[in-house]
């Protein structure tokens, strides 16, 4: 059986392995993130949430997913 190649990304500061050719939309679904309540940054650039299905993740990508929490 052909082994699926993995890529190594950093998600919110933690290393995570994903199958090659995973797009950002897939990742959000895997994580069950409520997309309307978050903002996503890929390699320090803010991503337009409408276009996440078109963004293929690659090795060493750094993703930040943030939301609002209680604060002063």
């Amino acid at each position, binding site marked *: 059986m052909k082994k699926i190649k993995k890529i190594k990304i950093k998600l919110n500061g933690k290393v995570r392995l994903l199958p090659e050719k995973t797009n950002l939309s897939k990742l959000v679904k895997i994580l069950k993130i409520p997309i309307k*309540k978050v*903002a996503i940054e890929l390699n320090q650039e803010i991503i337009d949430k409408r276009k996440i299905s078109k963004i293929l993740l690659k090795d060493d990508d750094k993703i930040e997913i*943030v*939301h*609002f929490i*209680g604060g*002063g």
Partner: protein
Amino acid sequence: MEVVDLKKDKLIIAKKVFNSRLIVGTGKYKNMSQCAKAIKLSGADIVTVAVRRVNITDKNKPLLMDYIDPKKITYLPNTAGCFNSNDALRTLRLAREIGGWKLVKLEVLGDKKNLFPEMIETLKSTEILSKEGFKVMVYCNDDPLMARRLENAGACAIMPLAAPIGSGLGILNKINIKIIRNQTKLPLIIDAGLGQASDATIAMELGCDGVLVNTAIAKAKKPFEMALAFKNSVIAGRQSYLAGRIEKKLMGNPSSPSKGLI
């Protein structure tokens, strides 16, 4: 006789109209339901919120938006915890992306112990954010000259500290606050350092347009009672300011007529 109708006395920030002059923070509560109830009791219609990483591993953690509806209460994204301009800009750009927030609170700190604002970075960030179309409410020190610079840089509200964040010391420099009040037409909102409800009354009596309170409510022995106390104290202070206080005199002045004494 004309009596000021406080219901018509609105707080206006960047052309947005708010009913309450009390803004509250959403941090430091025991849990989200306590936070939501305290906010409701406070009557605030603006709350400050922080931008942080989503907890990827614990998805059952309660979400702020599930407790406080951003359609009913205005979320004011805040850059608390940022110590330079780049981090603050990054945070607010992300905040805008979450749901189109343009009204934001800028807070760039300069020292981890006293939490005083780093004003050079704050001024720089205010200029950039204003040019990007943000409506920036700016946490600052109580320096009238710096307040003027912020105004010129495009701030939509000036938010001087009363005392260090979370200190509960109350307004330490009333004269500076008064000077800032007299020089600016921008909304002036006391941010940080209040300890009890009467501190808010004093801020309002100095002519401030509002106050922002977090720790004094969240960490009070009874947060719900304190939320109510702050609500009432802001109203009392505003009413007192509008009523126009008497002049201060050195000597006594009897309240009863001296004529007709037996």
